[in-house]
């Protein structure tokens, strides 16, 4: 039997220590052990992007990451995107441009879009489509989401 391990990492800017089984999915650790339910489970096989988080500054699918691999890492979830001064520009733009309908994909979309704007502050339409190609939305048809990300880029630029 595998023992629980004591995991130490940074979660949304704050140090975090947690006892978990090493093969606990990062997604379950967030939602069940830490109560951070903004990160969603869609497909559970790395195809839909609903569970996207930033691990050491890179977009990853939290359903595909075992807890052990988070040791020592810097983790940002959708709960960590907004700051005390307000929503992240991507979140504000998704709101302003009706970039969500049911909202289930929105946390993953916001994480992927925030990552894009950090890497590429002035993305063209193709850059946005590429960055969001691992995030599926079954409601919007994507048009308003792409418009929102481009609007967020313009306000940041």
């Amino acid at each position, binding site marked *: 039997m595998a023992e629980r391990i004591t995991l130490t990492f940074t979660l949304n800017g704050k140090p975090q220590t947690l006892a978990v089984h090493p093969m606990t999915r990062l997604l379950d650790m967030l939602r069940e052990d830490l109560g951070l339910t903004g990160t969603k489970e869609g497909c559970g096989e790395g195809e839909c992007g609903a569970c996207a988080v930033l691990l050491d500054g890179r977009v*990853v699918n939290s359903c595909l990451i075992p807890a052990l691999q988070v040791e020592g890492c810097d983790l940002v979830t959708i709960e960590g995107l907004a700051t005390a001064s307000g929503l992240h520009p991507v979140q504000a733009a998704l709101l302003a441009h009706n970039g969500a309908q049911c909202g289930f994909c929105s946390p993953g979309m916001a994480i992927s879009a925030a990552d894009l704007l950090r890497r590429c502050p002035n993305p063209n339409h193709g850059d946005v489509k590429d960055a969001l190609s691992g995030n599926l939305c079954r409601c919007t048809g994507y048009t308003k989401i792409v418009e929102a990300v481009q609007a967020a880029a313009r306000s940041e630029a």
Partner: protein
Amino acid sequence: MRGFLPAMELQRPASLSEALQMLAAHTGRPFAGGTDLMVVYNAGKLRETRFLDIARLPELQGIRETPEYLDLGALCTFTELLAHPAIHRHFPNLVKSAKATGALAIQNRGTLGGNIANASPAADTPPCLLAYGAELELVSPRGTRVVPYELFHQGYKVMDLAADELVTRIRVPKPSGTSVHYFRKVGTRQAQAIAKLSLALVAQVADGCVANLRIGLGAVAPAPVRACHAEAVLQGQPLANLPVAVALEALLADMSPIDDIRSTAHYRSIVTRNLLAQALRTLSATGN
């Protein structure tokens, strides 16, 4: 639907030598980016319960360039490949196939070594590695050996890889002189689709003729395969008059496509030949 969590072990060896000792003692199966294994785990279909997290072993990291080849750590992610200028300069097919693997979140975690050792016939980079004539460095407590990648896959998920061996590095020789590179993957959409089929071709041309040519095929055989019959037809032939019809006929002997959830044997057979025809048009055009 997942396994019983306390029964699942994931240990992190502190060094390559410790990892090799643990492998030899059957302590667990190697676990790197997890983008394939976790899918099976999440579906409740993972038979093994003990794994070794090799993702941070320094010996398996990094890209080293020599005048003759690139030496890629097995733990190089697709994102790391895409960020390296020498990959873009010398191996455009690796760029295309890494971009065609999943989407960004998968490219950030999935590794080249994992793509090889997971041994899916539909993986995107292996046909390119076959066409580039890659070699694998395999390390075990017994020593190091180098295996031509074209001899590594021996059947469906059967590899020339002992239980105590790790794929540590992948060496890819730089094509010399004038070379033509073609890769195309056919899937249901550009991102996140597993290939229905794929074809990679690399040809070196000299004096208006094919000097050396290799073709790698994906998802049309139990493992990634070289198209040796089609290659034999094309070697040495003049670019202005390639025996296209004969090569397309020969390609049939290189494939054993099946019907499955992603496509049919009929479709795979026709479209793989269409891709070769397109690749040969590209090749002919370089002679003009």
